[in-house]
């Protein structure tokens, strides 16, 4: 069972200095980048669930669990052990006794309980509430009906009990930075907003809003010998072309690449040595709204999958910086079925299907898209002539990101193209196809299939991991057949790093989020001192 998880992560291509067996060097500064925008929200990671903010939070904060990039699963971070009860709903956590906050105080069970209570503060609408709501009694706190979460019980200073509402693996819920554990009393002070105190390997040294965040080694970090570097400097650089110059100019140690630069870096004898590629758990799809008449017909949706030469687009336009999507779940997911072949490029078949559905003469639809280069208008532009060949005309409706998420969750679209999170938990990912899941949550295409509903309910109820995976695989295959989406690709995240930067992890959930304590720079770095 777990073995399968291990095997699938092997797909993650590891090319850079990740697996090298060198002795980590101490000292120096890691000059990392935060590529998703030109600022951080603030220094309170509870308020943001953006990848951009998690990039700095990983240096300063830690959550109950952490993502193990190599294992491809969440593992315990702040606790030594977690034992589940018989019914699988109550977990007893034993905290590690060597974890100290940056003010020198030892981690305590109260901190954990306070943090989750804090996340459920309804007036604050923290995005992390989404996860803490899984704890029994969390919703009551959110609605103001209770003061504390009833499902959390302190046993002693280093032990607490957590009762869940559903039978799920808490690891998948409490590993992101937005559920970082705060020191209870200190976090209530006003100064906390400017001076976050966390459990992470680095403590805040300097923050220039909109520019960079510098953190320095926390000597009492609980992993022995770590972190290695003296400092981590995280530069906020949203502009890819500027990042490119800075990287080539050796001003930064790592950079996330887009397709265009991926080609350039791969073709460069020097730069190509430092590329880390990972299949991320995001699936790029075009969603089709069944309330738009042609898309109500499965044959039309399949026809679209047949009509688009997806491989060609991936090869020529995305420059192979993606893996062909077979279905919903990504290859790293336990529910992924290798035996399934993706829709072939077959315009004739597409035409036939369209004719059967009564659209022999084609139709026209409006395609809502943002300007994102990997899952936005540039892709649509390449698709347009292909659909035109089978008689389908496309009108592009350009929107901004915030508008896209709004119109999609409200169903105010005919078709959209987006990148959707499909991991790491396959059950969570596939729940989006449960008919009870509202459109506002993630059932964007109003998917409704009795068989899928049943399989999902079964998977949620069972204790048998193998049956669970089997059910989920079946769901995934039904979704493939029903084709509510044009399955485009799974993202291949690529990080360029300088030769002196070591210890990067192939994080499939988001490559830009790294555990800095495992990273180090050798003496060739300009910032080696």
């Amino acid at each position: 069972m777990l073995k399968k998880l291990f095997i699938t992560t092997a797909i993650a291509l590891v090319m850079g200095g990740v697996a090298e067996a060198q002795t980590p060097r101490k000292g120096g500064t890691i000059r990392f980048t935060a590529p998703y925008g030109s600022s951080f929200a603030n220094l309170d990671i509870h308020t943001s669930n953006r990848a951009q903010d998690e990039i700095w939070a990983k240096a300063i904060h830690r959550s109950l669990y952490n993502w193990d990039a190599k294992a491809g699963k969440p593992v315990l971070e702040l606790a030594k052990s977690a034992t589940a009860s018989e019914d699988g709903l109550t977990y007893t956590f034993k905290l590690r006794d060597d974890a100290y906050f940056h003010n020198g105080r030892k981690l305590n069970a109260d901190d954990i309980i306070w943090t989750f209570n804090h996340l459920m503060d309804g007036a604050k609408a923290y995005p992390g509430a989404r996860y803490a709501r899984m704890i029994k009694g969390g919703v009551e706190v959110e609605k103001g009906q209770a003061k504390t979460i009833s499902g959390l019980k302190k046993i002693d200073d280093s032990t607490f009990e957590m009762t869940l509402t559903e039978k799920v693996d808490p690891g998948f819920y409490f590993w992101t930075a937005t559920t970082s554990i705060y020191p209870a009393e200190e976090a209530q002070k006003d100064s906390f907003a400017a001076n976050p105190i966390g459990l992470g390997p680095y403590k805040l040294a300097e923050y220039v809003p909109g520019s960079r965040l510098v953190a320095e080694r926390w000597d009492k970090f609980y992993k022995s010998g770590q972190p290695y570097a003296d400092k981590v400097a995280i530069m906020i650089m949203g502009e890819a072309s500027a990042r490119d110059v800075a990287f080539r100019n050796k001003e930064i140690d790592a950079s996330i690449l887009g397709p265009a630069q991926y080609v350039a870096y791969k073709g460069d004898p020097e730069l190509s040595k430092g590329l880390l590629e990972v299949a991320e758990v995001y699936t790029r799809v075009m969603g089709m709204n069944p309330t738009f008449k042609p898309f109500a017909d499965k044959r039309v949706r399949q026809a679209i999958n047949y009509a688009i030469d997806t491989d060609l687009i991936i090869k020529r336009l995305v420059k192979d910086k993606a893996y062909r999507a077979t279905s919903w779940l990504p290859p790293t997911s336990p529910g992924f079925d290798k035996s399934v072949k993706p829709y072939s490029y077959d315009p004739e078949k597409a035409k036939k299907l369209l004719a059967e559905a009564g659209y022999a003469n084609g139709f026209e639809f409006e395609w809502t898209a943002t300007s994102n280069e990997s899952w936005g208008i540039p892709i649509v532009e390449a698709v347009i002539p292909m659909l035109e060949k089978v008689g389908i005309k496309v009108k592009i409706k350009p929107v901004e990101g915030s508008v896209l998420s709004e119109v999609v969750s409200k169903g105010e679209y005919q078709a959209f193209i987006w990148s959707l999170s499909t991991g790491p938990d396959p059950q969570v990912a596939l729940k989006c196809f449960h008919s009870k899941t509202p459109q506002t949550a993630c059932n964007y295409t109003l998917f409704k299939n009795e068989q899928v509903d049943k399989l999902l309910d079964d998977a949620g109820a069972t204790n048998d991991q193998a049956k669970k995976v089997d059910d989920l695989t079946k769901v995934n295959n039904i979704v493939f057949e029903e084709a509510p989406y044009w399955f485009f690709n799974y993202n291949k995240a690529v990080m360029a790093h300088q030769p002196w930067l070591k210890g990067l992890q192939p994080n499939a959930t988001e490559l830009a989020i790294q555990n800095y304590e495992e990273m180090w720079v050798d003496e060739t770095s300009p910032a080696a001192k």
Partner: protein
Amino acid sequence: MKFRANLLIGGALFGLVVIAGLFAPLLAHTDPVMGANLMNAELPPDTEFWFGTDAQGRDIYSRVLHGARISLTVGIVSQLINTVIGVCLGLSAGYWGGWWDDFVSGLTNLMLAIPSLIFALAIMAILNPGLTSLLIALGLTNWSFTCRLARASALSLKSQGYVQAAKVLGYSDVRIMLTQLLPNMLGPIIVIGTLGMGGAVLAEASLSFLGLGIRPPYPSWGSMLSDARDQITTAPWISIFPGLAIFVTVLGLNLLGDGLRDILDPQSRTRRA
């Protein structure tokens, strides 16, 4: 003698763009949108693709030609809107004076105080990116200079004998504004409009860079340039040609504006004497 060079070079450059725009369907090799063919993606310039191809395999030469239509539309329509708004407000404010003048002057100061790019940015965000939005955004945000000019001209012209004479002859206010004032202030306003057209083309590029410009299917130079900025090391031709097109157009318009100013703006005529 220099002013003639301005006018000639500016006129020639701008004329080139106008011809490119007018005859784009004839001159272009492929359809700017439907011409996508991924088999030809990112080919450098050669005899078939004069300016090379872009990431989607479209002929950049054809797209640049069609882009001229977009840029001309953006420049001309947005400036037309600006000019109409500016002239209507400025002319009437200068001529009538009083509270209306106070109001218009306040409005103009307001428009001057908000940097036009930021204003346009807001409007683009509200209306969603696209050509129509852009025309509105650029058309509504740059009339303050025209308005000030029209107001100042109206103020100075209204004391001119022929305006007084028209009043004495029983002309209505609107008729005086249209037949006596407007034709005599048109020169400098055309100059401002010409220079503003260049500004609009540049503003389109800036907004595209900020992700709020014209979006496909329109092949606008600004979005071509902005989208290709990541490929500047790998496939420089994708951005060089639209960039060059913007430069040539704006340069042409600026030179043309300067040249026209020498001819049409009586102030600078005394300047030369």
